[in-house]
């Protein structure tokens, strides 16, 4: 910093990126203390802070992109370690960079000391069983990072975090604007905006975390904000129930998070640092076994946070919160945290699950199961928000599956595109509900709305088409990449041959199109079934919708395959931009070609197949509803038509309506069991067994005291003292009783105890 030759100075934004979470955090405090006194009740603070944060995020994004383009030109120059003042700036140099192309996008870490703990005397690598008796050189190496246990707090800027900064601030800003209309006149308007700010700040804090410990902090803060916002209308019990369920389900996964982080901390030679952990995971310094256990533990956290089967059940219930919050939770904050964590610690998962060269692993399987299982549930919902919620579950499954099959960029790209169209859909659903007297019931209160609210209708259709993967909208590109990334389709390559995930992915592609068609039909076509006269929402609601719909159209072009770019005769630099920007040098060069981290080759045939399935499914559903509608304009009652005719279908339908009975299992069997019989048994044990022993001991010592009293003390003290105290005031009586009988008993007890132990000692000596 001080001398010119001291290597590369970071761009201003990299060193001050902490401002991005700090702004909404400050906004939270300001709104909480001053919000109610302001003309717009605090909303203006939130929006201003978010605007500023979004501006900074944009600067960060473009700086990052500029860096990468520059690096590409200069063929990856070596970056050295830079130290200035108390702040340590580490610019990692990807070791394998030169061999496999330029070291693009090495993470920039900025850290300050948070606290120190321990001296390291304990650090000597002592395998409990002595099996891992290390030879000298290795032992030294393992002990090296232990020189100090200063735990740092800081920011980590790389493609992944910059991408999320952009998404979070962008969506959050739109949600803020939208909310000024949507929750207008709410009983806790100011409070709502305060927590919207804190929610955003927590997520941004997590996104920028440079260590696993810091990530836990952000992770949990996101959880508690969602608790508050889901339970925003806490007067009604279902809402607070939903909030509790969300928090508790996440806590279950957090057990895995705590343990996983602990394992990695010690495995990486006592470090919480993402960079250190990832480096050591890749270089093989952490054993495969350890990585697998850690990855499984962390997977539990992903399952709860990112709504993967079987811990997804809180997510649909979380719809109890205000709709803009749902949009924020589902698109940008909270649920993508789990996916983000996988990306952050990708080497751990990649090595731990042996993703390369495999055909199935835990992550890919859970993702695949979730994507199909969640999609199926979306078919039987009446509530438009619940359809979208299950759709989110399904899409998150897609992302996790992508990461599970080694398609890192595809997984994150899907996170990116999904954020825009899912936010669009949720906000659209909110707009619809705004028009229909705050109902979300598609069958009872909607229908035919396209005539009344064209803006909402068109943006919703665009969002749905993007979600369903209709080319050339955003979802098409990311979904196609994931399908390609499974490597199971002939001629694609990839990191393994994940046939089952490919099949799951194709099924979901069809299902998504089908249930979204159903939703659109029920909501916007046919005749209006609700009360009153629906109307289009105001500009503060429709403008965000239009912006998001626009994004849902265009963002997919950020990662076009080169074959397609060539076909359109576009400049070759336009191909896979997202991959260049986001995929860290870490993954590509750490894992390296020798470990088989490759990008699959896109396949035109697969793209046609997936699109065909989606369009086909959409058309079939459309025809089905059209026929129903022709039979009776009030088609809603017939929607479940085939269910009544076939027992097998009816049974399947029932399983779906009951959400695979998982809620029964969790709420009634597990939670009810622990809270009921188990806790009561523990309490009974406490009151009767433990206290019984205590009482028995007390009684016998009193007996012993009486015995001593009768033979030792008799005649010295008579009973008059006892008798005299009975009539006095209560406190006096108490004191007197203490002075008389009982104290002697205690003294006896003390004496007895001392005697017993003294005897023990005598024998021991």
């Amino acid at each position, binding site marked *: 910093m001080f001398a010119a030759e001291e290597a590369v100075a970071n761009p201003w934004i990299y060193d001050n990126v902490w401002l991005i979470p700090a702004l909404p955090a400050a906004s939270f405090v300001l709104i909480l203390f001053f919000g109610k006194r302001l003309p717009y009740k605090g909303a203006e603070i939130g929006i201003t802070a978010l605007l500023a944060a979004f501006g900074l995020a944009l600067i960060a994004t473009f700086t990052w992109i500029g860096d990468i383009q520059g690096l590409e030109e200069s063929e990856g120059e070596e970056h050295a370690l830079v130290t200035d003042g108390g702040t340590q700036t580490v610019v990692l140099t990807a070791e394998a960079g030169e061999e496999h192309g330029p070291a693009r996008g090495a993470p920039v870490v900025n850290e300050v*000391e948070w*606290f*120190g*703990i*321990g*001296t390291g*005397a*304990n650090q*000597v690598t*002592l395998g*409990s069983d002595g099996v891992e008796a290390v030879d000298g050189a290795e032992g030294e190496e393992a002990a090296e990072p232990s020189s100090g246990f200063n735990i740092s707090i800081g920011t980590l800027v790389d493609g992944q975090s910059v991408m999320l900064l952009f998404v979070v601030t962008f969506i959050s800003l739109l949600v803020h604007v939208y909310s000024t209309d949507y929750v207008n006149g709410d009983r806790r308007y100011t409070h709502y905006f305060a927590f919207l700010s804190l929610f955003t700040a927590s997520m941004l804090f997590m996104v920028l975390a440079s260590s696993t410990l810091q990530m*836990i*902090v952000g*992770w*949990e*803060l996101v959880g*508690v904000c969602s608790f508050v916002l889901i339970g925003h209308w*806490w*007067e009604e*019990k279902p809402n*607070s129930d939903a909030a*509790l369920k969300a*928090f*508790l389900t996440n*806590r279950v996964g*957090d*057990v895995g998070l*705590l*343990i996983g982080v*602990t*394992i990695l*901390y*010690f495995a990486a030679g006592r470090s919480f640092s993402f960079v250190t952990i990832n480096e050591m995971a890749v270089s093989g310094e952490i054993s495969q076994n350890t990585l697998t256990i850690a990855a499984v533990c962390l997977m539990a956290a992903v399952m709860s946070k990112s709504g993967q089967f079987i811990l997804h059940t809180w997510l649909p219930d979380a719809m109890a919160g205000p709709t803009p919050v749902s949009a924020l939770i589902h698109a940008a904050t909270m649920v993508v945290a789990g996916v983000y964590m996988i990306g952050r610690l990708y080497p751990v998962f990649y090595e731990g699950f042996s993703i390369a060269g495999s055909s199935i692993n835990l992550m890919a399987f859970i993702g695949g199961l979730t994507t199909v299982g969640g999609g199926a549930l979306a078919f039987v919902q009446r509530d438009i928000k619940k359809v979208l919620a299950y759709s989110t579950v399904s899409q998150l499954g897609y992302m996790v599956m992508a990461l599970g099959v080694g398609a890192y960029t595809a997984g994150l790209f899907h996170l990116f595109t999904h954020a825009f169209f899912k936010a669009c859909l949720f906000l659209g659903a909110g707009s619809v509900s705004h028009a229909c007297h705050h109902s979300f019931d598609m069958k009872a209160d909607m229908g035919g709305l396209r005539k009344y609210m064209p803006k909402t209708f068109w943006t919703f259709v665009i969002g749905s088409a993007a979600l369903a993967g209709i080319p050339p909208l955003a979802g098409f590109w990311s979904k196609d990449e994931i399908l390609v990334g499974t490597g199971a389709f002939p001629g694609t390559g990839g990191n393994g041959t994940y046939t089952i995930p490919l099949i799951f992915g194709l099924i979901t592609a069809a299902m998504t199109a089908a249930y979204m068609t159903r939703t659109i039909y029920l909501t916007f076509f046919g005749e209006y079934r609700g009360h009153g006269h629906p109307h289009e929402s105001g500009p503060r609601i429709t403008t965000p919708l239009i912006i998001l719909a626009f994004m849902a159209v265009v963002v997919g072009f950020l990662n076009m395959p080169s074959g397609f770019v060539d076909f359109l005769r576009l400049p070759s630099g336009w191909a896979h931009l997202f991959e260049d920007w986001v995929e860290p040098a870490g993954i590509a060069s750490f894992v390296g070609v020798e470990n088989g981290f490759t990008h699959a080759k896109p396949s035109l045939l697969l793209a046609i197949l997936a699109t065909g399935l989606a369009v086909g499914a959409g058309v079939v559903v459309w025809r089905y509803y059209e026929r129903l509608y022709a039979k009776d304009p009030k088609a809603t009652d017939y929607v479940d038509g085939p269910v009544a005719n076939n027992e097998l279908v009816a049974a399947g339908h029932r399983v779906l309506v009951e959400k695979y009975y998982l809620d029964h299992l969790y709420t009634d069997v597990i*939670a009810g069991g*622990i*809270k009921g019989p*188990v*806790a*009561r048994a*523990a*309490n009974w044990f*406490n009151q009767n067994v*433990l206290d019984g022993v*205590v009482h028995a001991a007390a009684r016998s010592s009193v007996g012993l005291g009486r015995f001593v009293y009768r033979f030792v003390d008799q005649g010295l003290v008579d009973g008059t003292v006892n008798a005299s105290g009975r009539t006095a005031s*209560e*406190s006096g009586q*108490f*004191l007197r*009783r*203490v002075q008389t009988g*009982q104290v002697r008993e*205690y003294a006896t*007890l*003390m004496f007895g*105890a*001392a005697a017993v*132990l003294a005897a*023990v*000692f005598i024998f021991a*000596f």
Partner: protein
Amino acid sequence: MQSFLDSWGISAMVFIPLVGVAIMMLLPEKEEELHKTIALLASVGAGIFGVLLLANFDYDRSGELQFAVDRRWIDVINARYTIGLDGMSLPLVALTLLVVPLVIVYSWNHIPEPGNAKAFLMLTLVLHTGMLGTFVAGDLVLFFVFFEVVLLPMYFMIGVWGGEQRLYAAIKFFLYTLFGSALMLVSFLALYWSTGSATFNIVELAEQVAARDISLRTQVLIFGGMFMGFGIKVPMFPFHTWLPDAHTEAPTQGSVILAAVLLKLGTYGFIRIAIPILPEAAVEWAPYIGLLAVIGIIYGALGCLAQTDMKRLIAFSSVAHMGYVMLGIATLTDFGINAAIFGMVAHGLITGMLFFLAGSVKERYHTLEIRRLGGLLVQAPRMGWILGITTMASLGLPGLAGFWGEFPAILASYDPAPQLNESLFRVYMVIAAIGTVLAAAYLLWLLQRTAFGTPSEEFADDPHIHDTVFTEWVAWVPMLIPIVVLGFVPSLIFDVTNDSASLIGDVVQALGR
């Protein structure tokens, strides 16, 4: 100034409350305001000396005893007046100095039935001296005296100002603690004789034990006596059953002091006396302590889930939370002991705060039955908010103090001292981590039932139910601020405790396998 602090600072801090007691003794009972003022002044006076000590404390040498005084006391048994302050005792002294004045402030308009502010506040001040003395004592006899001084005032506080079952609770508390104290005393005496060194000084005893060839069996037995004394105070499962009764029946102030400071006397005893003097025995005992700690975590949480009374629920939660502290201690590592001290302070602040809240709820609703409560956020929104923040802190939410006692303890048990069975402690780690789910369950359930929803018909239009009042703000804000600040700046405690904790870790480390 410095020389005065060096020789008199700690003594002044410890005994100023007794000066207050002496003055109050001379004044008639009717002068309630005067008694309150004197009590507050006395506790604040101790606090001023405490602040001076804290300000002049050399934080670079936090592993050493500072402001140490070592004078003749009882020559016959070689007991000396040895006091001092180091990184281990400092956070707990600070906690005590913070909590007691707040309790007195809270008492301003919350003197429990049957009244008599004079006696009540005098007892509080005696407690104050006893607790401070225990944390600074460097001599086992002195420690024992202060340890016992604490017992009687609390006994009277529960027995006279407590709830319906106060007699039973007070006697149970007294009995239990005395029983443990007796065994502890025997251990102290055995230590004195077996080392033959004619000293009760903790540091010297540790050196003597290390130098002499005392059989492991004897050491283990002596440790056992201390374990009973300290373990009951903590309280560890299965010696905890005095705690729910004592807490539930005690007046609010008593519960707060009990939770915030008294329980820490036990855990402090482990890390100040038992482990440093008898590290080899500690290694033998550690697996069992760890086992009881994790049983306590799960068992305490299950106990909470079964409670129908708010105060009793909070009381049971102490069993679970102190389990984390004991788990940290049982690892016998610097990391674990750091976590334990942090856990003590955090639990003191958080659970103390919860008891304050329970007291205020009781005052307004005249019941603590969870079933009948609800809608606190509607009727007393600020109090509801405070309850929300405190429960979140209690369940170990990062960003609030509770997290830094809990997570590092879990972390430490992954890698216990080298002599301990790693696999066993990893099992403990998993159980402790599962405990966090249960903690969230009972605390959020409590929050939902009391704060959310709408008030029941019974209380809907009760004019007595009002929001936080002035004395409550004055008493609570100083507790809430550190709960939040420590959550983000854990170094405030870790930097102080680290050297002392590391010394213990080193002692155990040096034993070899």
